[in-house]
């Protein structure tokens, strides 16, 4: 039996500290045993306070973990405790603390704490996962001069059932949620610029042929030079070309800017200009052509 030193009560105010001569709760014959399903003993370990188990004990799913002990006497009477429990402290990140209640016989003082891992009365938390627990035997009660008994028994590994494990209820708490990054649709895939460039060059190729053919035609711009003598004619010819160019520019801007009504206005203006100036320029050309083809004044008069 372990006797303990008197405790030191700190002096509070004017109160003198009471020196108590108390002893530890008498707990003997502590035995941890593992029983299989048929309740036959597979393992038995005797424990000596305050030495803890040196190696972890293993309890398989469906087995029974049993701790038995004997309560001694105090002042000639059975020192029956009110609390006879084992606290299982899980060693994983959840740090579950499971209290298993035992019973003590009033007559014999024999105490036992049992967990039948196969039964539905066993704490659900033993079935979450195979994990290691630290066991602590707690004996306490209401007998004066007896100090509560706390014994660190050591480590036990309790196997969870392989099939149908219990599901741990998750603690729901408000926290920040993972960020979401939007997945933008990828841009439409375009043909290689080399390919489109090649075809662009092909489209421009006829210009080369045209230039080659025209160079053989001996173009001398005689009508243009002839126009130089008459400022009005050259103005009209120029205006005609400008109006054609402007009509095309208007159509281009319509294609790029897509605004219908300004386009219609501009087209209206430029087409009138083109009609008037075109008529003047073409009649000037006709006049010159008729002069050149034999000075046919008769034909001119017919017009």
């Amino acid at each position: 039996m372990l006797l303990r030193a008197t405790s030191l009560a700190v002096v509070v105010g004017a109160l003198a500290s009471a020196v108590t001569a108390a002893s530890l709760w008498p707990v003997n014959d502590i035995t941890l045993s593992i029983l299989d399903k048929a309740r036959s003993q597979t393992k038995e370990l005797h424990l000596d306070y305050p030495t803890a188990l040196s190696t972890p004990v293993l309890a398989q799913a469906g087995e029974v973990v049993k701790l038995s002990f004997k309560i001694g006497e105090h002042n000639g009477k059975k020192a029956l405790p009110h609390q006879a429990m084992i606290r299982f402290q899980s060693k994983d990140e959840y740090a579950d603390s499971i209290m298993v209640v035992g019973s003590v016989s009033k007559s014999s003082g024999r105490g036992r704490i049992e967990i039948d891992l196969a039964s539905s009365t066993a704490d659900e938390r033993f079935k979450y996962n195979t994990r290691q627990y630290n066991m602590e035997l707690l004996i306490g009660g209401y007998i004066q001069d007896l100090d509560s008994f706390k014994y660190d028994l050591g480590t036990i590994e309790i196997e969870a059932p392989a099939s149908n494990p219990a599901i741990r209820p998750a603690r729901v708490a408000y926290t920040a949620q993972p960020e979401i990054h939007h997945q933008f649709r990828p841009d439409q895939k375009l043909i290689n610029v080399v390919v489109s460039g090649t075809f662009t060059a092909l489209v421009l190729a006829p210009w080369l042929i045209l230039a080659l053919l025209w160079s053989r035609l001996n173009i001398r711009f005689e009508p243009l030079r002839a126009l130089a003598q008459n400022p009005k004619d050259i103005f009209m010819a120029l205006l005609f070309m400008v109006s054609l160019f402007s009509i095309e520019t208007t159509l281009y801007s319509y294609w790029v800017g897509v605004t219908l009504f300004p386009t219609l206005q501009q087209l209206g203006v430029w087409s009138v200009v083109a009609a008037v100036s075109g008529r003047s320029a073409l009649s000037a050309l006709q006049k010159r052509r008729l002069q050149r083809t034999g000075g046919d004044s008769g034909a001119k008069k017919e017009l």
Partner: protein
Amino acid sequence: MALAWVASASSSLTGSRALVLLDSLDDTDSYSSFLKDLEDRHYRLSIEEVGSEIKLSKNDERNFDHLLLLTKLKSYPKGLTAKGFIEFVADGGNLLIAASPDMGTPLRELAREFDVEFDDRQTTVLDHFHYDTKLGAEKHDAIVVPASTNVLNNEHIIPQAQVAGQSILFRGIAHSVNPTNPLLTSVLWAPNEAYSWETVNLSEPAKQGPLTMMAGKDISLASVMQARNNARVAFVGSTEMLSDRFFDAQPEPISVSGAETTTTTTKNANRAFVAELTKWTFQEKGVVEVRNVHHHKVGEDLAPAHYRIKENMTYTIEMSVFHDDEWHPLIADDVQLELIMLDPYIRKTLDRIDGGEGSTLGIYTTTVQLPDQYGVFKFTVNYKRLGLTYIESITTVGIHPLRHDQYPRFISQAKPYYTSAASMAVGFLVFSFIYLWGGLDSSAKTTKKA
């Protein structure tokens, strides 16, 4: 008159009218320190007996801002049921419930409405390893709970600095809170060796099926709830914890370590703990308000009528938190912006920028590229954290698709087509010019023949 009222207004943002319900008005004396603390914080207390007629509201207006139930509540006050108390909370009133092992069924039912389950009748939290050698010498029921390890570490509810290193004296009933209820949190729990059992037949072992024994950390001694409307409810398993006796007692816990059992003294934290708990419950702290929300395109200052898809947008929200009678900037690193159209498309943590000295605004901002999905989006800051008012700021903004003329006009793929069209146009001009004024002899001859 008005000035005097303003000066005496409590620091609670809900209001200063508090109703204290007691079993008997004689109990007022045993809570004198607690009630005086409340009066010092400028609460106007109405103290009533449970038996008297209580009207919590009149014409759909609350008569009180806070309700303190320091009673066993064996029966409901006249004209009031659990529904009446719940309506009081639904109207924004704050509630403090202090229970005891001999609490009545109505109080138990009321707590159950808030998902708090008190242990069976006449059970008490017992601890042979942490009882107070003076108050709990007989039944080991007055337990000394170390505040450093058994008080929830949350700066908004009970700041550790107020209670660290001290102990809380508790004698009362255990309760459990539903772990799947995020509105509810335990703020004080029992030591590992404690268990909850009837204090009858103390000389015999406590026997019970292991399923119903509440023990250790699973025993809540005090817990808090913030309803969805931000009304707050606190549960304390011990009315004695608020009493003068427990406020003034010097805790002398027995302490067992191996074979050594010693008695030490620690500082009593009951008064500080209860003060912080009531400050939180009565909305004196942890109250957050959204002051401003801005959003605009990058490079602009004003919010547009709508955005286009894939535009860059800057969002800013300014929030303040109330404590110590003043508004302070809310300081956090986990404020998140969500862009929601049925589902969240983007969720991003906002960056805090310093509002400068003396500013009461916590400014949070971020820039995001809007999704390439058009529709009516909600820019939402859903900031719900333990101990703080739930914030849900929603700005509804339309995101439009590109207009017909906002698509890219020229794509490299179509270059041959553009070139052929341009070539055609230029060709027309050049050909006209050459044909009309180039002076091709052959054309003259042809005309002549015709």
